[in-house]
């Protein structure tokens, strides 16, 4: 069991002044599992993502990735370990083309141009980038082909726009570029922060299909999502957070019926309304 654990959080805590944004969270994610984190706005879901991906440091607790303690490592290191994420509000590189955006995702996989030599490695990288021997060209070419293959997963949404700067894309397309960028890292763990935010029902269904595909391919995924239907369909397990704490965990249907969850997630009034409607 222990070696098949992809991600393991113990007592993870982050405080901002008097507010405890993430409060002693325990979480285990097995290889190939898709776990969703739900909870009202401000519950600490994104902060939890930031702690796992190294963009923020926990005040307490540990993060283990594939059995290794990775608590407090830099985001660069964690990306190199195979953790990729998307951002809640979308963080594409606005002035880069779709192709370049996704190629950045493959950055940690550059080998020929980025030799792992200590001290003079960066200078070699500069030299190789300028000289571009055959191996470097071949690597770049291979990655470009890979990017096209990844973009093809989004049908005709991104491929025709491959050379357009990201700032010119629609909101939904920017979200897609972010996911394509994450896939280009060939992640072992993928964290998706509200991938369908701002998408219409058709686009949401498309995205849901894609996430289901990724799961079927064996990718381990941690998903933050507000659209409960998608959460219920995709998740092996659901974790509910409220005010930084984990208040429920289990299969979707079980969590859905939990009165604590209904209260936290929908509020008192809505909860009773919804029960009577159902």
């Amino acid at each position, binding site marked *: 069991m222990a070696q098949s654990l992809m991600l393991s959080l113990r007592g993870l805590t982050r405080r*901002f*002044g008097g507010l405890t944004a993430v409060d002693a969270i325990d979480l285990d994610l097995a290889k190939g599992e898709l776990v969703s984190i739900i909870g009202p706005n401000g519950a600490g879901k994104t902060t939890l993502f*930031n702690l796992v*991906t*190294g*963009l*923020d440091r926990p005040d307490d607790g540990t993060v283990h990735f594939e059995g290794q303690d990775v608590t407090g490592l*830099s*985001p*660069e290191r964690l*990306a*190199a370990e195979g953790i*990729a*994420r998307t*951002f*809640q*509000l*979308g*963080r*594409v*590189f*606005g*002035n*880069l083309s779709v192709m*370049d*955006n996704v*190629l*950045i*995702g493959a*950055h*940690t996989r*550059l080998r020929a*141009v980025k030799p792992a030599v200590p001290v003079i490695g*960066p*200078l070699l*990288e*500069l030299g190789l*980038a*300028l000289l*571009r021997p055959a191996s470097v060209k071949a690597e*770049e070419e291979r990655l470009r082909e890979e990017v096209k293959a990844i973009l093809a997963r989004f049908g005709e949404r991104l491929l025709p726009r491959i050379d357009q*700067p*990201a*700032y*010119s894309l629609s909101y939904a397309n*920017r979200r897609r570029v972010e996911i394509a*960028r994450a896939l280009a*890292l060939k992640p072992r763990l993928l964290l998706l922060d509200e991938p369908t935010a701002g998408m219409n029902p058709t686009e949401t269904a498309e995205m849901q299909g894609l996430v289901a595909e990724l799961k079927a391919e064996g990718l381990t995924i941690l998903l933050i999502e507000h659209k409960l239907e998608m959460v219920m369909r995709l998740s092996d397990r659901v974790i509910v957070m409220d005010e930084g704490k984990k208040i429920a965990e289990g299969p979707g249907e079980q969590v859905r019926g939990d009165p604590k969850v209904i209260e936290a997630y929908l509020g008192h009034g809505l909860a009773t309304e919804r029960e009577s409607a159902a």
Partner: protein
Amino acid sequence: MSSWLDYTINGLIVGNVYALVAVGLALIFGVSRLINFAQGSIYLVGAYIGWVAVVQLHTPLPLTIIVVAVAAAIVGLIIERFGLRPLQNSVRIAPLLATIGISFVLDQLVMLTFSPNPRALPSQLPDVRFQLGGGTIGPLDLLIAGVGLTSALLLFVFLRYSKLGWAVRAASQDRDAAMQMGVDVNRVNQAVFGIAAALGGVSGMLVGMYYNQIDTAMSLQATLKGVVAEVVGGAGNVPGAVIGSLLLGLVESYGVAVFGTSYRNLFAFLLLVVVLVLRPNGLFASARQAPPEPLTGTFIAPSRPVRIPRWALAVAAGGFAVLPLFPVSFYVLQTLINAWLLGMLALSLTLVAGTIGQVSLGHAALLAIGAYTSALLSLTFSVPAGLAIIGGGLMSAALGTALISPSFRLRGHYVSIATLAIGEIVSLVILNWEGVTRGPIGISGIPPLSLFGYDLISPTSIYWFSFAVMVVLALLQGRLLTSHLGRSFRAIRDDDVAARAYGLSLNRYKSLAFIFGGFAAGVSGGIAAHLYSYINHETFNTQQSILALTVVILGGLGNVVGAIVGSVALVGLPEVFRIAAEYRILIYGIVLLLLVRFRPQGLLGTI
């Protein structure tokens, strides 16, 4: 021991003056998240208005203070209304560049009106000293302390108890929320700029009286000191700015006591760099927090670069290459040589400021390092000029990158402050390290350019040499931009958080950008040293940094061809129109302002 008390009093008095500047900066930063690089210019204007009032109009002291405060406030309001308000919905880099442009325009206007020569500003107070413990204190010291305390008190009452003061505080906590609650943010901005300018102007006048001298160099110094004090206290933190100012005053005063006057500024800038490295949010910052997620591409203006076909570039390059074969005057060649030298600097800056988004205001320091290295190599070790210039480029790349590396963790405006300070540090070290740099005397008798044993003395050969070097650097940079490094640099510029999340180390790639850019700038400085045959610590100054920045904005951030087109335009057009030298900086400033307002992506577009 008594002298220590004197130094303490002096430090606190000077700190009080800095506080008047820093509080204004903090107020503006609080409301607009903008570091106002024009604050020192208002201080300068205040000093000269004070001079007019005292020397020409013979106003009594209280009236002088009021006249200066009101006039400076009006200048502040004009800056806010016409310089910054139109940029409210613009990209983040725009107001930063605008205040830099405004500062140059104001400084030049003062210089053109009053001439650059220093003037005496008499203090209007009796020249007596009172014994205080072991030290002495004069009426002017008391006046400065009094003005400092009174303004602090008035400001406190204003912010705390007046309705507009509430609005200012609300807007500085959350601008959008304040707007939604009906706060007129434009009025708040006006109030803040008016107050900041009044404080800055009075401060300039008091300093002029304190040293009984005013000159146009005061402006940049005041901006730097005010910014140092503000950043030390925590940007946007008004009480922090006061404490930061007093601390800065004391550090300088004690530093001068121990090491001598010429080290005064060195301590100020070292304090800044130390604070930026250890506590980039200031000494009194609240808990660390992640930066808010940006919308896409908000630092620089998004644009599609103008595509120029390769054959057109080749034809243009060929045309300039064969130009000396035609009967053109030496004057034209000389002008173009200057353009090529500036072009190399602009290539460097467009990579650093445009491609990777580190708007450097101290880029002339890289020229200086290259020039001194090359000059000393050829003079002391008889290295041939060609090799010495490459040595200058390498030294600039290495030393420049090492010096700038503490600022790699910083973003946006902070990078500009840090580079400005580091540029000043380099020039102060050159001035003070007499054993190596020959100090204020400078280096003379630098051998002329040479290549493979042949001296390049004729303008034609110098023209070809500098043009060829620039073209090679431009081609290399173009190649760099199409590599994975080009996209990595641009990704870091657009969103450094997302870049890190995808494995891009900021230190590594910012270093590489500065290494590459430092080399180009160092080579430019090296060539210049051999051309001029004499250099000193003032040969490469902030004006060149600003000129290069204007070139880069004109050409389009990150745009290689744009950097060269911009250089030719800004060096050539003033010659074509025979504009007198003293008006040029003014024109550069105005060009910068107009570009930021009407074509932020430059002529050829951002890459």
